[in-house]
């Protein structure tokens, strides 16, 4: 499997190299939204005497800079791609090879991240210097961030695939996608750190998967969460990943029975 991945990575990287400007633009677009929220909260905190709900100007900056990095590392777009793969008949050749289509998507996902992480790091470093960020990160936050970000990526990826499989039944999965994105926007901790939200909203955040994708790794790497809370949040990620994996297996098996391979 390692050999397959190595070869797939090389091929996808070669293909991606031809779209480097497009990749760079996508990366920059992904920075815009958190930067706007960061600027807004920094302004609010400054206007209220330097802090809101225990978050100082530098804390907000730290939170959103880490969130930008987490957002980049956990991004998954299979739910958009898959519908086109089915419609244009690109899924069929993959189904006829002795390799699950998930693997192609994993590699494609990693190629994008691998090729855009260096320029993103530069952008984030500039933002960090501009806003004079503050992190409360201990060494064990960094250690726990590793499983947290891996689980967050896997969860984001598998959630994307669960939605993607809807394309076996629905003609337009984009609507489901949009709904998911809007929900994630509210409940993942993008508008504000969830500690600043009303208790009822916080409960919803904990119950949905989105916070475990973006909010959890962000809070852990930024520091300021206790060890116990960090571990509990990672367990929450693992549970959601298990749920999504099971849902994917069921949906995939049933979807393939439904698959009509039109135009393929």
């Amino acid at each position, binding site marked *: 499997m390692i*050999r*397959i991945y*190595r*070869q*797939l990575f*090389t*091929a*996808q990287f*070669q*293909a991606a190299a*031809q*779209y480097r400007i497009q990749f760079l633009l996508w990366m920059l677009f992904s920075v815009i939204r958190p930067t706007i929220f960061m600027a807004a909260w920094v302004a609010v905190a400054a206007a209220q005497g330097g802090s809101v709900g225990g978050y100082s100007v530098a804390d907000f900056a730290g939170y959103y800079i880490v969130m930008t990095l987490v957002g980049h590392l956990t991004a998954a777009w299979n739910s958009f791609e898959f519908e086109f793969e089915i419609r244009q*008949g690109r899924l*069929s*050749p993959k*189904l*006829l*090879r*002795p*390799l699950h289509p998930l693997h192609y998507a994993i590699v494609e996902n990693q190629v994008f991240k691998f090729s855009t992480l260096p320029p993103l790091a530069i952008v984030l470093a500039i933002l960090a210097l501009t806003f004079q960020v503050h992190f409360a990160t201990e060494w064990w936050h960094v250690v726990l961030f590793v499983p947290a970000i891996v689980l967050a990526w896997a969860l984001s990826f598998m959630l994307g695939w669960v939605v993607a499989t809807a394309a076996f039944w629905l003609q337009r999965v984009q609507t489901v996608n949009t709904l998911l994105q809007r929900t994630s926007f509210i409940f993942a901790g993008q508008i504000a750190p969830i500690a600043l939200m009303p208790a009822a909203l916080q409960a919803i955040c904990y119950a949905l998967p989105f916070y475990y994708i973006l909010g959890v790794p962000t809070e852990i790497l930024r520091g300021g969460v206790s060890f116990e809370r960090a571990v509990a949040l990672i367990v929450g990620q693992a549970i959601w990943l298990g749920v999504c994996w099971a849902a994917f297996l069921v949906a995939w098996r049933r979807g*393939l*029975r439904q*698959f*009509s*391979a039109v135009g*393929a």
Partner: protein
Amino acid sequence: MNDPVVRVRDLRKVYRVNERQTGFGATVTSLFRRKFKEVPAVGGITFDIAPGEIVGFLGPNGAGKTTTLKMLSGLLYPTSGEAIVNGDIPWRRRDEFLKTITLLMGNRSQLVWDIPAADSFLVLKEIYTIPDAQYGATLDELTALLELEPLLHKPVRGLSLGERMKVEFAAGLLHSPRIAFLDEPTLGLDVSMQARIRAFVAEYNRRSGATILLTSHYMDDVVALCRRVIVIHHGVLLYDGALADLAERMAPYKRISVTLTTASSARDLSSYGEVASRDEYHATLHVPRREAPERTARLVRELGDGLADISVEDPPIEEVIDKVFTSERPLEAVPA
């Protein structure tokens, strides 16, 4: 027949499609109540294919050919019926099974467009776990047969349709499948490229002993490659047997074309055979196969200097197949 590599029993596929009515009212209603219609694509077909055979799978558009190929390659689940391909149930799609087949579609690409084919081949080598030595030998052989050398290192998107089809063939055959399902492999290619692909398929079958199930609308493909044909129409098997026999039964005549030296449309040729077409200088006659030599000799003798040219040929296979389609009733099978 040897133990079949493809065994199909009463295979059926019914598609469930959303039926949309026209008009505003019907559209509004469809928002709340969707109507579905069952469309039978393959209506219970049965056949066997022996190892090493090249079988032509014929039928007009929408006959169920591609649906059958998709079921036999494992892409589609059937609605009912059985199929065993290479000893396995195709739609289980086990890795061991997938390594023994290939499905090549003339209108579809399985290569990454932005990179050279050689790089896609390396990915396939790993996916199919092809040993280095076997990979080298197979690639060399395919490169020679298909004259791929100048094409391997160009990005696929820069290749012409014919060139792309050649590298698609190589990609599909790198893992030396024991069965190749070819769906319209010469679609859109010019005459010379069609001939080269045909020659390649024949040679590949001879060298590797692979079984080939081929659909094509170009009868030249079928005549050149397939001794046996399976004809389906509206998902029903109409004929399974020798192509030559089909021609003899559906069109039991030879075609004699004559060209006259002088305009003589008045001349009666009906005593030589059934006049299928006629103008001042040309005529086409249909004569019973057995009597063709004698009638031809008589024509030459009796028309004498009035005859500029004469040719005797079998009726075009398109005409034969068309007769099977239009009859729409199953013909008794004759072994190929």
